[in-house]
């Protein structure tokens, strides 16, 4: 009986606790990256070689800071441009000024910093 009461109290406590906010990126479908501590949802316009583009993204839970970059592993170089990330509030961001200047394999990299630790979340893509 006592054990049942404790169990019921625990369920009540869980029911009363605020639910963790869902990680979402309003405005359409988004791609998802997951690390130990963070989820990144992101969206770009269709990418074309040699055209500037922006990345809209959300990071959950909101980090202390976040950087966005892109890298060609086979070529061992990144972009010729340095993107700027603007915080839009609520863990949402917009990175502007990216350009993938060659065809081939690229990695879109989100460097997320929280609690003194930095995580890299990487999305691989191939540009024709």
């Amino acid at each position, binding site marked *: 009986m006592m054990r049942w009461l404790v169990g019921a109290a625990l369920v009540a406590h869980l029911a009363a606790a605020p639910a963790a906010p869902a990680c979402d990126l309003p405005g359409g479908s988004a791609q998802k990256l997951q690390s130990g501590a963070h989820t990144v949802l992101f969206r770009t316009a269709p990418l074309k*070689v*040699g055209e*500037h583009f922006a990345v809209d993204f959300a990071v959950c839970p909101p980090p202390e800071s976040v950087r966005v970059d892109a890298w060609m592993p086979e070529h061992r*170089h990144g972009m*010729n441009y340095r993107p700027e990330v603007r915080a839009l509030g609520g863990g949402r961001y917009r990175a502007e*000024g990216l*350009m993938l200047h060659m065809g081939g394999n690229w990695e879109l990299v989100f460097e997320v910093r929280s609690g003194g630790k930095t995580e890299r979340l990487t999305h691989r893509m191939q540009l024709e």
Partner: protein
Amino acid sequence: MRRALLVALFAAVPAAFAFNDAEIRAIASHGPWPPAFRPDPSNRVSGNRDAIDLGERLFFERRLSAGGAVSCSRCHVPERNWTDGEVRARGLALVDRNAPSVANVRLGHWFGWDGAHDSLWSQAIRPILDPREMGASASQVARFVRVDADYTCRYRKAFGAPPSPSDEAVLVDVAKALAAFQETLASGRTPFDEYRDALVKGDAKGIARYPETAKRGLAIFIGRGSCNVCHIGPAFTNGEFHDTGVPFFIEPGRVDPGRYEGIRKLLASRFNLLGPYNDDATRGTATGTRHVALEHRNFGEFKTPSLRNLALTAPYMHNGRLATLRAVVDHYSTLSPDRLHSDGEAILKPLRLSEAESRDLVAFLASLSDGGSAYRRKAFAADCR
């Protein structure tokens, strides 16, 4: 007997070259040609007929130079497909780099071998002021436009107002008219364009007309050569910068820093697209300038040139050190990874082409050229009303 003869004949003829679907998509991405005209929002007279006329006259006008000695056409010769055929260009003095053609120049987003300019009009200012090229000054240019009645009249027609009291503003407007004219310089259709369109339409006769040797060269270009990693799109360039192992010593003890210095000059220039002379109020045209990154690897990088009309614009590379298309192919065929600069493109490997493959690649590159510039010089009359 007849059948045996036919079999023997077919065995002697190499099979016609055929591309798979992915290769056809890659080939199709190099067209269509010519691309539609899109005005430059940073230049309020881009596409303006009166500005094009003014710019054409200014392009051949020696009075824009110190002592009236040279014009833009000194190094950008229409009959030489808008280059000069020299190893290094010579204006009032010898300069450090090869004169690039200005055909199709409007399709770029950086201008000059080092991309020190982010608009065609800001690029046009540099040779006017460079002591080794035209050696003029803003005040000389402004005085000329204000004093010559015919030019004053044409300036008013193009810009809707008389020349500004500011010498610098007049210099910028002269450069914008020069840009409006250069935007009209386009190379024509080529054997490659006919083939590319036939391939897209599935036109067997059109496909058959393109030489087999050029098809084999094209297969190298989009295949093991990976040339289309940088030479992309209808203009065959990504408009960006790479170190391809071309030496950057100008002479013993003097180096050409290429893109590294180009970015520094760009960001220091008051004529860049972040500055007061950009006619695009949204500054959407300035995205590249706002975000361009200066890195050590930019040292010795030079702009990927367009391959259109390549056969008509020798010699090659930023310093004109390669005299023929075959020499360019040999450069990529034999380049030594040990000689590549430490920050050079990591994917560059010697292609090790056979003699026949080298000939095929040259045949393909030659097929990117039209029959030569269709431009005809005009006799300009001073008859502006």
